């Protein structure tokens, strides 16, 4: 039972950064913009949050600093892709490299001492229930925030006019412009939101998941988040499930390594990436649903006609 609880909680925690990053990217892509620079924005978020902690700032401020760092980095992409109409693939890739370089540079002064990780919540009574308590009521606040963001984003996308506007801009910015919506401004907001979420994902990695600065500590989680969005066919619930799947595989392979399974650990480490992609490929086979949820204008630059 303890093992099960450990795997379950480990899964939820490992999935949290992916949920932040992938849901943010989902909103960006739903508006028709492809920001491949998740990895860079996450690293910036991670570096700034970590820096804020060692500078002695309180934890909520540090997390906010990470989120803002992600948003500021995304603004760079926004300017290139939306204002100067650069190729979005190129701008996103540049951002990923930029973020990883700058964060490594900043991190040279961070040393290698661990910090005090984000504290877990303790709800009187609830957290003390056997099994259920540790499974649901003893996470750090950001785990709950990630789930809340999932609810908020789903509600926003499918229940509000703002979400409808965002989705339809992703289908046809020309039409949106024709009926009078400020396409570029809305896409900027989406990109900023995506940056904010990636910053949160990064902050989670450096102040909660592994409270230690390691260069390039995202270790490809930005890329897997990008893949999650595509294979989840641009639907929030599938992103959530995909993130948990990835988290679960991560924990299982760690357990496997701990048990000394006679498979090279490098192969085991690759397992979560492989398994997540295979499963998502299988569930994204229905082309009808794919075309329905795919933002048709994805990665196509838009210039308002004059």
């Amino acid at each position: 039972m303890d093992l099960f609880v450990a795997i379950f909680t480990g899964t939820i925690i490992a999935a949290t950064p992916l949920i932040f990053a992938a849901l943010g990217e989902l909103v960006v892509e739903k508006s028709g913009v492809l920001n491949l620079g998740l990895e860079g924005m996450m690293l910036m978020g991670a570096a700034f949050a970590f820096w804020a902690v060692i500078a002695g700032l309180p934890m909520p401020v540090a997390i906010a600093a990470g989120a803002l760092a992600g948003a500021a980095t995304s603004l760079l992409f926004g300017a290139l892709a939306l204002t100067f109409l650069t190729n979005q693939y190129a701008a996103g890739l540049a951002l990923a490299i930029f973020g990883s370089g700058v964060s490594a540079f900043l991190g040279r002064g961070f040393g290698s001492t661990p910090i005090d990780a984000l504290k877990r919540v303790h709800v009187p009574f609830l957290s003390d229930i056997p099994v259920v308590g540790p499974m649901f009521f003893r996470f750090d606040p950001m785990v709950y925030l990630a789930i809340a963001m999932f609810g908020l984003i789903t509600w926003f996308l499918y229940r509000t006019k703002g979400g409808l506007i965002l989705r339809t801009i992703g289908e046809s910015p020309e039409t949106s412009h024709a009926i009078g919506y400020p396409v570029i401004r809305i896409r900027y907001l989406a990109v900023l939101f995506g940056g904010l979420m990636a910053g949160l994902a990064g902050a989670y990695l450096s102040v909660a998941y592994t409270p230690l600065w390691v260069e390039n500590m995202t270790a490809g989680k930005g890329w897997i988040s990008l893949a999650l969005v595509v294979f989840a066919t641009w639907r929030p619930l599938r992103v959530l499930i995909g993130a948990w799947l990835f988290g679960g595989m991560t924990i299982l392979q760690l357990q496997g390594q701990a048990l000394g399974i006679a498979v090279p650990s490098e192969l085991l480490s690759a397992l979560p990436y492989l398994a997540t992609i295979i499963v998502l490929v299988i569930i994204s086979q229905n082309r009808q649903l794919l075309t329905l949820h795919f933002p048709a204008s994805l990665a196509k630059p838009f210039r308002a006609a004059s």
Partner: protein
Amino acid sequence: MIPRLELRSITKSYPGTVANDAVSLSILPGEIHAVLGENGAGKSTLMKIIYGAAQADSGEIYCDGRRIEAHNPAISRSLGIEMVYQHFALFESVSVVENIALAVKGTFDLGRLATEIEALSARYGMPIDPHRRVHDLSVGERQRVEIVRCLLQSPKLLILDEPTSVLTPQAVVKLFGTLRQLASEGCSIVYISHKLDEVQELCDTATVLRNGKVTGTAKPKESTSLELARMMVGSQLPEMHVSPSAPSAKPLLEVRGLSAPARDKYGTELTDVSLEVHGGEIVGLAGVSGNGQAELIALLSGERTHPRAETILIGGRPSGHLSAGERRKLGMAFVPEERLGRGAVPPHALWENAVLTAHRAGLVRNALVDRRRAGDFARRVIERFKVKANGPQASAQSLSGGNLQKFIVGRELTLEPKILLVSQPTWGVDVGAAAFIRQTLVDLSRAGAAVLVVSEELDELFEICDRLLVISNGRVSPPLIRKQTNREEIGLLMTRVGHGETRRTEVALED
């Protein structure tokens, strides 16, 4: 009376052309005002300027006597100006009510809006189901959505851009009824069209544009078609010469009991389609779009192959399994419905687009494109078919719709096909170019080729075809001799089975 809308010497230039040159016009409340003109005459630009989707370089716009200073679509809507686009401004991935919610002010209450839509659409005789996704709607239904969306705003001025090009004759009658009802309630209507008979039937006044300039105003009900057409075209209209056909003994194109599944959930299944096209004749396929035309055309052109080779015979040879390229080698040519993207590659030069299908005509040597020959070929097409273009170097997307269509038809005809498939040959093409294209099709058939024309425009089919077929719900009617049938009979066959069965409506809230 103060005009609802007044334009004073509106001028708008794009690089290389003057789209509108000192255009003035005035529309009274409750007036139905036609803007007539060929493609490229500047009608669409003028409408965009009225609606605020484009800005004039100079000139003034007055609405109800007050000058509009800075203009954009939001201001238009606040003034009560609404526009129904030729290419519908609808989002396919969301439902009717969601589409409409995007365009109306007020609180976001889809339930209440759906009720309003149902009530309003019923009142104007255009029933629509607000919860269906736009992707599932036929073109006619989409147009209704557009119109209802505008009507919900209680507009004072409604702009319609070529609204009847895709409607059945019966639907046109209904639309006109709706428009007259609206005008009688005081709404002004700007009606853009190149169909003279419709303008004469519906409109009170007409402003005629040619090359961006106003060439005249007229009372269409009191003018003859010829007078209006001359104002539009500026010269004597070419007259159609349809000499009697002399069909070949054996058909050049034959389809025998062709059945095929739908392309996707939104497509139409073909059931036991049989038809014959002889050399020397033009056969027309009438029908409202979405009744299987796309499937049939794809199977005939070879874009889609059929496992049973003997269902399609080209020159007597079983060809169902052959690819598009192999069929072209047998002497078939194809002009698709989508000019940009299927008929031509938009950003590529005309000579490059010529190579796409004319590489068989010696434009390629040793696997390399012979640029000089390709250029010459494109130049010949441009000259012979009077394409208005900046030479073979001009990109396909820089041409107006009619000119690009002339180029594509010209390219295929220069290959001297034995069988020509044409889909919507004159869709969105102006009167002059349309007449020219039709005449070339007639001439080609009289020279012995088999021509199959798929079109939603009955006038066109009646003008040039020797025999007519009607496609409805994936079935093709037996052939009708053009001289022994009429529009009403064809119109009834078109709607016989009803187009598009009610499909399961899916909710967008998958998650």
